[in-house]
């Protein structure tokens, strides 16, 4: 059934697929056992003969989103690329050239010792690409190349594979030739080519197999890095991470908003529902209690170091879309403006730039900003609103206007203060946190992705009981 003349390898196809699944998991495809079984039967159905078809079949059965398809296509190309020693062709041409030149008198390299060469050297000199390739794959198998975990193991695996292929003997052969006064240039070229090919093979294996572990490790570290100290190159990755977390939360909290309240009959609805058969209650309707989705008003300090955290908080909240019924966002530094519209229309990174342009990078004035809020937007706060304030509470020694915060907290269902600084820094210098805290339902440090996640989970849980 598995006709595989064009297949690059002679090993068990299933084993090959299993390794491919591992590589695919590394690029972010979640492959469950039934899916891998499907993929196997799909591959059995289309065969290995046509690479494009094989690729289509795997993409159809394994990848379940467009992003996964792109990543998997790339992974497929690396995986089914067959390793080849690059210098072999040259070696072969050289061999032909050398044959010709050997016939001419005064050829500079004697081939007399060829029959004393070890197996590997003979294989390389014969220029048989297929044989070399097969030997490489076999050695890679024996060295368990697919078990490679960290990029630091590159040297270890390369030398192990070369060892298995008989590198020692090859070196001996070269040394023997040199000792005999010959300059076995072709053999040395072929050796270098082989080394390079093996290194490349190991590199590909690293791309394929270590990504899973490295990725998990890196994400774990990123979760705990203070957001305002994030390196530029990690920002994109953290965005993805936050997006992924939000997706999970959204799936979880998108579930039924009604609690079944069996036990209390809704008489009116029951009569209406059963009107068509003369009011005989075939179908009973029970009273249900609606569970509210959180309504959020977010006030974000976007001055200086808090801006980055604000970006991620907003990214988180806006990625939750269906799980939250209503969200209004106000940004402030020196003054406060409504930025909901900007955030609704754009991708978060673009939107943040826009917000920054509108609000400016001034130093923060909490008192003035709160006053702005009370004057213009207080009507949006009702007894069902959760007000989230994100800021370090550093008022630059201006009036903190705690009275306004008190009034907000009286109107709102709850006020949550998120502070990117660690708790021990609250109240030091110009931080007015201790004076704000009494008016907050609770306040939390919120400087890392992990803390952010915890806050959002709590937020989603609160209205469900």
């Amino acid at each position, binding site marked *: 059934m598995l006709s595989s003349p064009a297949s690059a390898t002679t090993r068990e196809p299933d084993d090959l697929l299993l390794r491919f699944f591992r590589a695919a998991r590394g690029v972010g495809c979640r492959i469950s056992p039934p899916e891998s079984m499907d993929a196997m039967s*799909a591959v059995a*159905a289309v065969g290995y003969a*046509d690479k494009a078809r094989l690729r289509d*079949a795997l993409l159809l059965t394994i990848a379940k989103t*467009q992003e996964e398809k792109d990543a998997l296509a790339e992974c497929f190309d690396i995986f089914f690329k067959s390793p080849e020693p690059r210098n072999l062709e040259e070696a072969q041409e050289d061999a032909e050239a050398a044959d010709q030149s050997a016939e001419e008198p005064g050829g500079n390299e004697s081939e007399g010792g060829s029959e004393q060469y070890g197996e590997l050297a003979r294989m390389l000199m014969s220029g048989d690409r297929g044989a070399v390739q097969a030997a490489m794959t076999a050695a890679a198998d024996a060295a368990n190349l697919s078990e490679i975990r960290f990029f630091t193991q590159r040297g270890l695996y390369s030398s192990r594979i070369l060892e298995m292929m008989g590198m020692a003997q090859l070196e001996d052969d070269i040394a023997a030739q040199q000792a005999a006064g010959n300059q076995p240039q072709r053999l040395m070229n072929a050796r270098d080519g082989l080394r390079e090919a093996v290194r490349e093979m190991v590199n590909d294996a690293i791309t394929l197999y270590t990504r899973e572990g490295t990725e998990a490790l890196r994400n774990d570290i990123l979760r705990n890095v203070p957001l305002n100290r994030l390196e530029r190159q990690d920002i994109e990755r953290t965005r993805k991470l936050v997006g992924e977390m939000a997706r999970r939360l959204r799936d979880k909290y998108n579930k039924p908003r009604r609690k079944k309240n069996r036990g209390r009959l809704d008489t009116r609805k029951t009569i209406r529902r059963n009107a068509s058969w003369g009011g005989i209650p075939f179908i009973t309707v029970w009273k249900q209690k609606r569970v509210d989705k959180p309504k959020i008003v977010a006030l974000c300090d976007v001055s200086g170091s808090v801006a980055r955290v604000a970006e991620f908080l907003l990214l988180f909240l806006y990625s939750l879309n269906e799980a939250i019924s209503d969200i209004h966002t106000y940004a402030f530094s020196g003054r406060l403006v409504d930025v909901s519209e900007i955030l609704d229309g754009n991708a978060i990174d673009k939107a943040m730039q826009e917000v920054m342009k509108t609000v400016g990078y001034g130093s923060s004035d909490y008192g003035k900003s709160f006053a702005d809020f009370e004057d213009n937007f207080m009507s949006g706060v009702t007894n069902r609103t959760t007000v989230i304030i994100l800021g370090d509470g550093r008022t630059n020694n201006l009036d903190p206007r705690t009275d306004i915060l008190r009034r907000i907290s009286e109107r709102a269902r709850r006020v949550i203060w998120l502070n990117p600084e660690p708790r021990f820094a609250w109240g030091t210098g110009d931080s007015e946190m201790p004076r704000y805290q009494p008016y907050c339902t609770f306040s939390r440090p919120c400087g890392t992705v992990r803390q952010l996640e915890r806050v959002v989970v709590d937020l989603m849980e609160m209205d469900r009981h």
Partner: protein
Amino acid sequence: MDSLLDPATAIEAVDRGLAEAGYIASRQISTAVFLAQRLDKPILVEGPAGVGKTELAKSIAAWQNIELIRMQCYEGLDEAKALYEWKYAKQLLYTQILKDKLGEVIGQTETLPAALARLHDFGDIFFSKQFVEPRPLLQALEQKDGCVLLIDEIDKADAEFEAFLLEILSDYQITIPEIGRIAAVTKPIVILTSNANRDLGDALKRRCIHLHIGFPEPRLEARIIETRVPGVASELRKKIVSFVHEVRTLDLKKLPSVSETIDWARVLLLLHTSSLSSEVVRDTLNVLLKYEVDMETVTPQVAELIDKAERAFVPG
């Protein structure tokens, strides 16, 4: 379909069959349909609106010459509307008619337990297949010759409904508590479509072959137009396709889809247009674009886009 055919021939057969039904499929689409038949798996089709997701199901039905059963999903769709419902009125009517008969049967017994035992002997007459009103899913399972079951816009239904579909998707059977399990007579070909309004659950995705249909390549789209709007001259067809292709590179709210291209080609045919001039394009742009904002973006660029489209080479 002959399962002994080798894959290349079989996929080609799918391709040809769909083409006969008027559907020009890309290689991925044909492969997906082939795999769905071979592995008995549903296909989940995702992609932007108007690229022919629903059309695919219709064409498979036309090609295989089997019934198409369509279930449009919407918010609040539940199993009573999707699977089956009891015919309450009929049950009620029958109890009334049979009242006297029941009296006769039970009347002969002396004690209450005896009457009850007697009633039991008749079984669940009122909860039998006769009183079941089959809805699309049940209908699909009952088709003797098989059918194409199209579950359209699954993303519009609630997440719970998705979970409810799992049994039918993986085992081609459903359970009605009062009657028992009903398995498919012939396994239907199931096509689910989604516009990605919300992320579908992993459990659902796991049970399906996932096919993403994007905007087609110009060559493929030209073939689609050729099949759908046969009257358009090949020169104009190429220009239409490459113009639409250029429009898709712009940053628009809603990119024109294949269905819009087809509509536009039809309109141009009706207007007896032989070549694309800025004027004609500007007048008919509302067929291609569905938002005022998009019109405002494209209108000033029409001449430039036509120029670009002229230069772009569309083979075939």
